[in-house]
């Protein structure tokens, strides 16, 4: 049912055509990026499919350099005239500005590690197969007097980058996701998985888990505000710590908007916290090169609670006297770079052990609508959602009404007592990362809501 991505030869042909047009138009340098996606998403609510979509699109993004200036133009039309117009638009934009004193010559050919992240079974899953999985999950909800809502999506994508100095990089991957909310009025709970391999997603196991937790979430009691010990499931951890990633960009420190300004090399987090950025980790997805075509490096960001290293684009690396780490965004941009494949070091505990070892605390399924209140102390606000439970004397005793929290991430990562193994985690606010479940003390719950 799903179509096929363009062949490598077709991508190369388009890139070569744009590079030729760039030379003909007088560009000093030209860079071309092709992005192609074939995605399908089945959406269900009230125990039935209510939206079901598919898309196929390709974009060609052209960056030219002329007299020390650069700019970008993007089109999704691949005929020769449209490509020529994109080159000319890019040149026109470039000419309109003063010279850029930080602009570097484009990089030449680069070596890359091979990553294989394309699985045919994921790419070809049919809408009928998705519908059957949805029906089975919905039937479970009906049998239990609940209401199911969620998505089942699959997709394939590829990215190719080439420039007039001979650089060429290409990557393709597949992606699948199943997310389900089971409503047991007035309670609800949720489960979700994301993988490049459809074989690693079990929709019915996720449906069962969400259903059981939704039953547990009924009859929620209201607790007063205060500081609580919390046991955060991996999805809750992800949507909180996911807001730390840009702080590790060298450009963010140069702009003095990172919480790590004046804090590099200091004992900022607990000694049990270590973080790396590693696109090659087996639980990660993504291309092995960045927006300029530099090979992504594994970078140790936090070692035993001490922020040790940042990630660098070519420009920020030159300013800092460092080597680029392969984390730059496509140029021109004002943000520089960011680690996009965070992997937290985990522990050997488990949710069950954390609950068993807690006298009084809250078990948090997920969090919602997280926003930054204080950028330097990294205070984040948000709500718990879809299952908040009171733990007393080593057992889950009752559901609790959801809380608003205002919590410093720095303080949170100072107060982590236990961690489970790190797992590929998906939620709704941050992009996918590899994080553990965590038990932490002193979590600031400020106001309960009505449910």
């Amino acid at each position, binding site marked *: 049912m799903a179509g096929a991505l363009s062949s490598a030869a077709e991508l190369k042909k388009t890139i070569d055509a744009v590079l030729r047009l760039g030379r003909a138009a007088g560009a000093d340098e030209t860079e071309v990026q092709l992005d192609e996606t074939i995605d399908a998403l089945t959406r269900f*609510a009230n125990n039935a499919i209510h939206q*079901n979509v598919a898309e196929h699109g390709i974009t060609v993004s052209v960056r030219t350099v002329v007299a020390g200036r650069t700019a970008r133009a993007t089109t999704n039309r691949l005929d020769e005239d449209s490509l020529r117009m994109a080159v000319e638009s890019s040149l026109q934009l470039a000419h309109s500005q003063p010279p850029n004193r930080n602009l570097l010559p484009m990089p030449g050919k680069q070596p890359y590690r091979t990553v294989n992240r394309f699985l045919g079974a994921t790419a070809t899953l049919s809408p009928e197969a998705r519908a059957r999985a949805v029906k089975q999950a*919905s039937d479970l909800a009906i049998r239990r007097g609940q209401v199911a809502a969620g998505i089942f999506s699959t997709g394939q994508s590829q990215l190719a980058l080439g420039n007039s100095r001979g650089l060429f990089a290409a990557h393709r991957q597949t992606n699948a996701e199943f997310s389900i909310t089971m409503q047991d009025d007035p309670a609800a709970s949720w489960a979700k998985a994301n993988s490049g391999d459809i074989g690693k997603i079990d929709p019915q196991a996720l449906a069962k888990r969400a259903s059981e937790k939704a039953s547990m979430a009924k009859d929620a009691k209201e607790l007063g505000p205060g500081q609580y010990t919390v046991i955060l499931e991996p999805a809750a951890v992800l949507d909180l710590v996911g807001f730390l990633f840009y702080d590790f960009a060298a450009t963010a420190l140069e702009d003095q908007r990172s919480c790590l300004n004046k804090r590099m090399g200091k004992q900022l987090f607990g000694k049990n916290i270590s973080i790396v950025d590693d696109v090659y980790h087996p639980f990660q997805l993504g291309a092995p090169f960045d927006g300029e075509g530099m090979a992504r490096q594994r970078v140790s960001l936090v070692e035993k609670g001490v922020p040790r290293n940042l990630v660098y684009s070519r420009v920020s690396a030159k300013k800092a006297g460092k080597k680029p780490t392969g984390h730059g965004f496509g140029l021109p941009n*004002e943000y520089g770079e960011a680690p996009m494949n965070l992997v937290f070091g985990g522990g050997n505990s488990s949710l069950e052990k954390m609950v068993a070892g807690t006298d009084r605390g809250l078990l948090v399924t997920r969090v919602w609508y997280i926003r930054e209140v204080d950028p330097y102390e990294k205070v984040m606000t948000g709500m718990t959602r879809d299952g908040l439970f009171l733990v007393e004397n080593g057992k889950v005793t009752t559901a609790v009404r959801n809380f608003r929290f205002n919590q410093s991430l720095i303080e949170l990562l100072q107060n982590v007592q236990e961690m489970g193994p790190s797992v590929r985690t998906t939620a709704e606010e941050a992009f996918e990362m590899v994080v553990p479940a965590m038990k932490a003390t002193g979590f600031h719950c400020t106001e309960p809501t009505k449910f």
Partner: protein
Amino acid sequence: MWDLTVVALNTAKLRGATYADARLMHLRQRDLTTKNGQVGTLAQSESIGIGIRVLAAGAWGFASTDRLDREGVAACAAQAVSIAKASALAKRGDTKMVPENPYVDSWQAPLRKDPFEIPLESQLDLLLQADAAMRTIKGVTLTETDMQFRKIDSWFASSIGSRIHQRKVISGGGIAATSFKGSEIQKRSYPNSFGGQYALAGYELIESLELLRHAPRVADESVALHSAAQCPEKTGTLLLDGSQLGLQIHESVGHPIELDRVLGQEANFAGTSFLTLDKLNKLKYGSTIVNVVADARLEHGPGLGTFAYDDEGVPAQCTDIIKDGQFRGYLSNRETAKLVGLERSSGTMRTESWNRLPIIRMTNISLKPGSGTPDEMVASTDDGIWMETNRSWSIDDRRYQFQFSTEVGWEIKGGKRVRMLKNPSYSGITTEFWNSCDAICGKEYWTLWGTPNCGKGQPMQTMGTGHGAAPARFRNVKMGTAFSGH
């Protein structure tokens, strides 16, 4: 363009669709930013394609393609029907819609200066000058400016006989200064945070903002915040400027009135709503001076929610949402209107692009003006805090409990602004908050604010919405909680 929509509709019908619509869209965008006196982003893009939505076997299917020839469009329409038939494997009844008339029309949003015809050099020059003006203030550590322009053409055709072309031009821009000192990062933005002000307008919007005139003040305030007193933690009187009130309307009125949320269709991601169907015409949403409308018509103003027809071919309308404090209406489409027994859709189906399914979105959700001036409102306040320009926003998934923080606050004592406050925040429960409203300024102080970045749907779509608001006052509001204990 119309030929391809005919191919789409004919193919869908031949394959078994009982209803179909096709939307061919051409989107053009220009982005300009500066940072610390240097050009940041400088980019232009275009995207063209077609999205085809069909009802077949009583269920929905949608497919999109950028292959704009007869074969590509026919294959896309066939795929949409095939997907609809797959949807029917997990349906609980046939999808039905309220009737709508066919329309044949062409509409263009008015503008005075096409931003794509203004020389890039002069656009960049204005941003670089504003950037430089902010950097003249000692203590400023980061300066940012931006402009964004979009031109959107859509050709909509449906199997009931509609054929509608619309052209919209959207402009936006703003400036921001940040100051890092000690252990605090403070920021001021103008005319609004997160990109400034946006409207369905041409370059005349940018000229009206007078970015250069405001740049030194914005920078000065970002530095001054370091010396300001901390916003106290207390329950008291809150006064909001129009831009912050616009976001308050967006989050605590605009989202909960979306019927797809109310009916559980967004339960997995955006959430549901406390405004269950039993509350219509019964809930006292706000005080008697609170009147809110959803108005997509041009006469409401050039907002990001202004159009002639929605993306389901329904004409723009004005719907009472809150009238004299009573809850009166929802945002609906043809399908949800049928589900709840309305006679007609309120015309709020909107899509980000050709490759996205139209879904229920806010149009212009506006609080009607009251009377009086901001000075008079301050003068009649014995003890309160004025907060302006959003810094953070968060609300639960049923839209009861919210918390906002703003860039700056001003303490009011004895009817006068007496000092600046840093790190202001407030929180509350939606209906308690709107019932505490006791003053709304007059129409001379009413602005139709643009929120360009509202995310909803799966796959995620970003949509612009409009929110008319004048400064207003609220009593017994909890303030300062966000920084409690930090």
